[in-house]
């Protein structure tokens, strides 16, 4: 019985970069025309305060942060401006999402507004099909992805853990495919690591990010161990008792997971295999 982890001989992704002599050397990756050193993508929602968000962002090391696109408060110029300003002042790339969109039409207009407002071609495409599970609507998602790619967007597509939908998104030219680990906000971790592994193996060379469902640092490590290029998370950090500490934990977990992936884990086996060689073992008479 083997686990979902990528063993050396079954690494369909074939994406192990040559290991540098010093494993602490930076290991950047590319997505949507950006070269990033951090593999943490952080959401900016539901922190106790803007300051806690910024502390968490710093602790996570994230260089890409998601934001939503919402109506301005006609009453006053408030927190939205300070959020965006603070992100840009840190040199963090802003990744607008289409959260709350249920149709391709809504998602496309939201992405276009985001491009105008934030002067970025990046979009985290999210088209929800059900308001209790927040599972993506594959039909509307693919439709929106096709339109947005044709319109020049760099689409990072949030999707279910179905390898066929994932491949379709990649074939459409999405900049990244981002399957869920578990429902948004559930914190359940990687509920189907086998499906995530299939997606990784079937889409070698495609930037893949585990998005949604991360509950704690070890979940993030596991995603990276499976060969995912990064993780996108939000409530796991924002809702933790100490968000900035969790952000730091995730940063380390992601680095550890990536290193473990590059190192190439041993295959799982059911029976023991002595780690100490038996050659040169002394002989002692065993009682009959």
């Amino acid at each position, binding site marked *: 019985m083997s686990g979902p982890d990528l063993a050396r001989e079954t690494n369909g992704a074939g994406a192990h970069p040559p290991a540098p002599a010093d494993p602490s050397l930076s290991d950047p990756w590319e997505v949507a025309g950006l070269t990033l050193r951090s593999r943490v993508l952080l959401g900016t929602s539901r922190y106790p305060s803007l300051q806690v968000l910024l502390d968490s962002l710093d602790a996570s090391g994230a260089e890409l942060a998601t*934001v*939503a*696109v919402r*109506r301005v408060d006609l009453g006053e110029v408030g927190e939205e401006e300070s959020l965006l300003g603070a992100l840009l002042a840190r040199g963090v790339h802003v990744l607008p999402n289409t959260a709350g969109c249920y149709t391709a039409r809504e998602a496309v207009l939201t992405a*276009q507004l*985001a491009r*105008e407002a*934030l*002067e970025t071609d990046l979009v985290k495409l999210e088209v929800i099909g059900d308001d209790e599970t927040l599972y993506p609507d594959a039909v509307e998602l693919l439709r929106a992805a096709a339109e947005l790619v044709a319109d020049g967007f760099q689409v990072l597509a949030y999707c279910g853990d179905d390898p066929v939908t994932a491949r379709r998104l990649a074939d459409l030219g999405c900049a990244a495919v981002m399957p869920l680990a578990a429902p948004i906000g559930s914190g359940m971790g990687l509920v189907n690591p086998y499906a995530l592994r299939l997606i990784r193996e079937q889409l070698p060379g495609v930037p893949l990010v585990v998005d949604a469902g991360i509950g704690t640092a070890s979940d993030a490590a596991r995603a990276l161990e499976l060969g995912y290029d990064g993780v996108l998370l939000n*409530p796991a950090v924002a809702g933790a008792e100490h968000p900035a500490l969790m952000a730091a934990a995730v940063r380390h977990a992601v680095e550890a997971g990536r290193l473990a992936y590059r190192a190439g884990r041993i295959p799982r086996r059911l029976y023991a295999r002595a780690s100490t060689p038996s050659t040169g073992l002394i002989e002692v008479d065993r009682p009959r």
Partner: protein
Amino acid sequence: MATPHDTMAIQVNGEPHEAPSGVTVERLLRHIGRDPDLPGFAVAVNDAVVRRDEWVRATVHDGDRVEIVTASQGG
């Protein structure tokens, strides 16, 4: 003073709003207290984005639905 002909009824972010007839997007933004020169927000009229460089020319008409959006916290 404005007569009924000088104003029109539009929707701004889902709220009914009275604005001078034939106002440009740029004037409308000023009218509601937004500085159009500040970055970070976008405008759609009737579900179509009005690009920033068109704000000085594009006019809003009676019954139009205007959306003004910006970045907000999101995951």
